[in-house]
């Protein structure tokens, strides 16, 4: 159960993270005047990890746009990060509720041995 919690803690917020990151990136790039299709946007997301393909893609953009791209990618990342943390908050709230399923009468607290 514990290991599965970690597995889903990486996978489920990960799916939300990607969705939020892509949508925010599209929105911010459009606002910056860059019209990129989904595959090019996906390529550009590699900029933060130092991907050479992402840097080549940015070099193809107009200089005025290229200057803003790294900041845009950073903002999209943090927006998605915050969304993932909100999801984790909700799961943890469910955890608080689940803790009330556990018997709560005065514990016997015996030292077994």
């Amino acid at each position, binding site marked *: 159960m514990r290991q599965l919690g970690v597995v889903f803690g990486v996978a489920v917020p990960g799916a939300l993270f990607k969705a939020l990151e892509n949508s925010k990136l599209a929105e911010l790039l459009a606002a910056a005047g860059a019209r990129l299709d989904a595959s090019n946007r996906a390529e550009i997301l590699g900029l933060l990890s130092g991907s050479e393909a992402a840097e080549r893609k940015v070099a193809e953009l107009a200089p005025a746009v290229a200057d803003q791209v790294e900041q845009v990618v950073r903002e999209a990342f943090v927006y998605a990060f915050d969304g993932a943390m909100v999801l984790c908050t909700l*799961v943890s709230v469910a955890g608080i509720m689940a803790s009330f399923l556990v018997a709560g009468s005065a514990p016997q607290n015996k030292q077994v041995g």
Partner: protein
Amino acid sequence: MALATILITIDFGGVMIVLPAIGRELGTSTTGLQWTANAYLLAFAVVMVAAGRLADIFGRRRLLLIGTALFIVASSLCGLARADWWLIAARAVQGVGAGVFLTASLSIVSSAFPPDEQSKGIGVWAGVIGIGIAVGPFVGGILTEVASWRWFFFVNIPIALLAVFLTLRVVRESRDETAGRYVDLFGLVTVTAGLTALVFGIPQSETLGWGSPFVIGMLVAAVILGALFVFVEPRLREPLIDLSLFANRSYLGANAVAFAQNFGFGAVMFFLTLYLQYVLDYSPLKAGLVFLPFTVLFTIGNLQAGRLASAIGPRLSMAGGTALIVAAFLLLALVTPTSGLAIVVVALVIAGVGQSLTYTISTTAGRGAISAAKAGAASGVTADGAAVGCRLRRCGARCTVQGA
């Protein structure tokens, strides 16, 4: 035992720190990085449930050596990986090896000491796990920075080989002569395939869309396999997982808390690592150091949580611990590209305390809620921490049990 156990637990937290470096070198996407972590964890989780039984039947030392051998081979393959699919496959094998090893090592440690001294042996074993979790991110950071992410995996090899040598020299073969030779392969296959389909399908939803045949197929497969598992398991004489345990509200609640706590643990380690290295441009070592308050408080808090449960009861202790985790996530949700490190460190301190309370107390509360006759089965379901809790309690270590 301690030597190789620390390797495995260092891997849990440490690998998260090395992920960005892997992403840079292999050009791995965020989804690929998720799988680099999850292939190991998923294999580890599933194998742990069955490995205890296999160790009882076929011999604990034999299983331990098989697990360590798998871990060595897989660590070599991880370090040599030239593509993300290669690394992910090797990580899955590494998870199998680690799961087999850790389960067999607990059995060996608990059977190696006379009853009145078992608490010492298992106490050391549990302490080693705590140290491994605490130093994992730091070790991952320093190896990546000084050498390469590949050395995070290569460094396992000599230490694991030494563990094999010592095991052959010191550990005697033992098995449970009363254990039946039946292993629930049906349960093992359905639960493994179902979970894999679910964990594989969810991340693809963003790329392919929820309506894509692949995503729908994966989710439908997960539901069918899960339903088969739930339908067949109660009808087996010796099921892989005793689902009747979940009819107990306290046990169900404690496991749900354990799941939620670890959900947060995985998310914090994975996403915060990326944030620190991608957005704040921290080096792997610096990112590893940022996690120290979290991991150290987590380890210290685990040792003290029993006292709190004794004073106010497990329900309130777990609710309080989880509330701290909520507060930490709310703080992290306020992070911006320029908010800096302070907010992250405060959140990690709060999360470390909250995580430690829920980790330990959910284990003891879950185990305390069921009868001694089903203690072994419950350990397997809650997995690692519960197994430790079970042995500690049996040995009379400092561990509180709630009277159900």
